């Protein structure tokens, strides 16, 4: 069973989420502070982490950054704040997804499933190595190289790159990317795509401000140019 770590200071929310997500088939460990969450994750790494932003002591943003330094565990923010500022800051800190309270358990569970899914678009007949200029993508191995250098991507960044590579040269709208990477069947938050695209560019583009491969198509979305 996938291990889920909940970092949430409100006891009632923490308990209700624990009960509900245990019903969804997760083994849940819940802690009230970021510090305890980090200790817990170091001791027994979780498969997924839910983090609240407003925490006593170390706040949610720092918690996300610390978790990110430890590895690429998928992190979902569950916050009552929905200002663009908070959403972007949390995603920039390294969160994979952002949901606003109150979130229905069904939807949260769908988000978590999407994050745990392996990179798609790499079926049996998919090529082992894809090249886009200096970028070398190995979907099976889960590796990306820029020139000779291996680039470390989070799971979400890697899936974003794989989806674009799968449709190489074609434009994918933000909605399509939300659907394929984050599993949003209904319209979702396009800021997720933009922030992750920014992070991906900083890792695989020589000049992130003037991307040559991960290009924005005005009004339509993004595409991966060979």
């Amino acid at each position: 069973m996938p291990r889920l770590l909940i970092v949430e200071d409100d006891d009632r929310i923490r308990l209700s989420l624990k009960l509900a997500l245990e019903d969804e088939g997760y083994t849940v460990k819940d802690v009230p502070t970021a510090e305890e969450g980090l200790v817990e994750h170091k001791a027994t790494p979780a498969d997924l982490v839910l983090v609240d932003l407003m925490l006593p002591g170390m706040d949610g943003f720092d918690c996300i950054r610390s978790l990110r330094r430890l590895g690429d565990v998928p992190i979902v923010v569950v916050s009552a704040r929905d200002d663009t500022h908070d959403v972007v800051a949390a995603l920039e800190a390294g969160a994979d997804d952002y949901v606003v309270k109150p979130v229905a358990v069904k939807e949260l569970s769908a988000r978590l499933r999407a994050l745990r899914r392996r990179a798609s678009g790499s079926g049996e007949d998919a090529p082992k190595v894809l090249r886009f200029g200096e970028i070398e993508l190995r979907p099976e191995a889960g590796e990306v190289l820029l020139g000779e250098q291996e680039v470390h991507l989070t799971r979400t960044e890697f899936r974003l790159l794989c989806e674009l590579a799968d449709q190489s040269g074609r434009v994918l709208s933000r909605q399509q990317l939300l659907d394929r990477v984050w599993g949003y069947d209904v319209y979702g938050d396009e800021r997720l795509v933009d922030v992750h695209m920014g992070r991906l560019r900083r890792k695989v583009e020589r000049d992130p401000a003037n991307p040559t491969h991960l290009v924005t198509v005005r009004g339509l979305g993004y595409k991966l140019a060979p």
Partner: protein
Amino acid sequence: MRVLGLRARITAVFAFGALVLSVALAFATYELTRTSLLDERERAAIRTAYFDASFIRTGLGGEDPDIVAALRNLDTGEARRPLVRREGQWFARSADNGLTGSIPASLQQLVEDGTPAVQRVPLRDSSALVVGVPLRTVDAAYYEISPLTELHRTLSVLSQALGGVALATTVAGAVVGWLVSRRVLSPLTSVAQAAGTIASGDWSARVARDRDPDLDKLAVSFNRMVDEVSARSESDRRFAADVSHELRSPLQTLSAATSVLDRRRDALDDRTAAAVDLLTDEVARFESLVSDLLELAKSDRPAERRPTDVVTLTRALATSKQLSPDIVQVDGDAEVLDVDPRRYEQILANLIDNANKHGGGVVRIGLSVAHDRLELEVDDEGAGVPLDERDLVFDRFARGRAASMRGGSEGTGLGLALVAQHVQAHLGTVEVLDRPGGGARFRVVLPGASA
């Protein structure tokens, strides 16, 4: 009747004033000039007539004088026509040409009676001066006709010149009026612009201060009004947001706890299961109510426009709302428009939800995108919206009469209010019409710059 704008009226008043003034001046000038020119001309005519008369008198001095020869010897230039009347007979240099007929009988009578006289008479298409001088010593009368053609030509040139000046003055008056009104109305224009910006949700708009103390008052009081209204609106907004925000945490607990109950619904007895169903439904409605309230609290912010493929977005949303693809009918010559994609989605989503809840389902979504605007129509097959409710449906917590009669408690009552706010943020319009064939048609028009 359309009332003329203040600016047009000021301009018209200036132009009219200039017209009256310049016409009066032109008229006076013309009259003065005409009178003095005529007087001078008359004096000159009399002077030469007397001179010529004395010459003729000398010519008629002897026995049986040759009057015609005397007339011919007279040096009268080209214009003047000398005539002599003696013993009831007219003498002239050449054939009469109707000249004698133009000398009025009253004038002749005066001269016959021994009084010199001068009169202006019409002559052909112009006029002429007739000077009559009695020649008592030779028992005759001398008449001299001086045409005023030259004078008329001068006066006609003068009147044209004056007319031109009057016209130019009027135009100049209109221009001055236009400029003055622009200066005077410029604070009004900037106030109107600021008010428009504020209406679209940007509370930061202010009117620039004016150097003129009279006009500055307007700017200062307008800005103070905006400050106060925006502070009040901001505190209302913050209150709504705070309340909704505080509701989020308990709602999260309710929502998660309810889902735990719902999962075990089948194991519960009927009464408990019914209670759990009620709880689940109401918690879901509560959730959407709070999220709509929060959305409403922040939707008075300006639209974040960016190039958006509205056609694809519309189709994707229709699909995600389980609508058949043929329901979406697209025309127009563009697909991408500068709109706020999040707000556009909510407009469409809420209109679809509204049609599903109150209108018996969506039968058509019409989208027409041009380079500078889009027109979105969502048709349903319900009872339509009565005329007197068409403005009310966009109010918060207003639900259709039909819905309340059904006792329907679906929806938050905020969907259409949100639509109206999102449309307003784009400076667009939304209205309810009758769908041809029954049902309601919600039409949204959003202006936007083409990508």
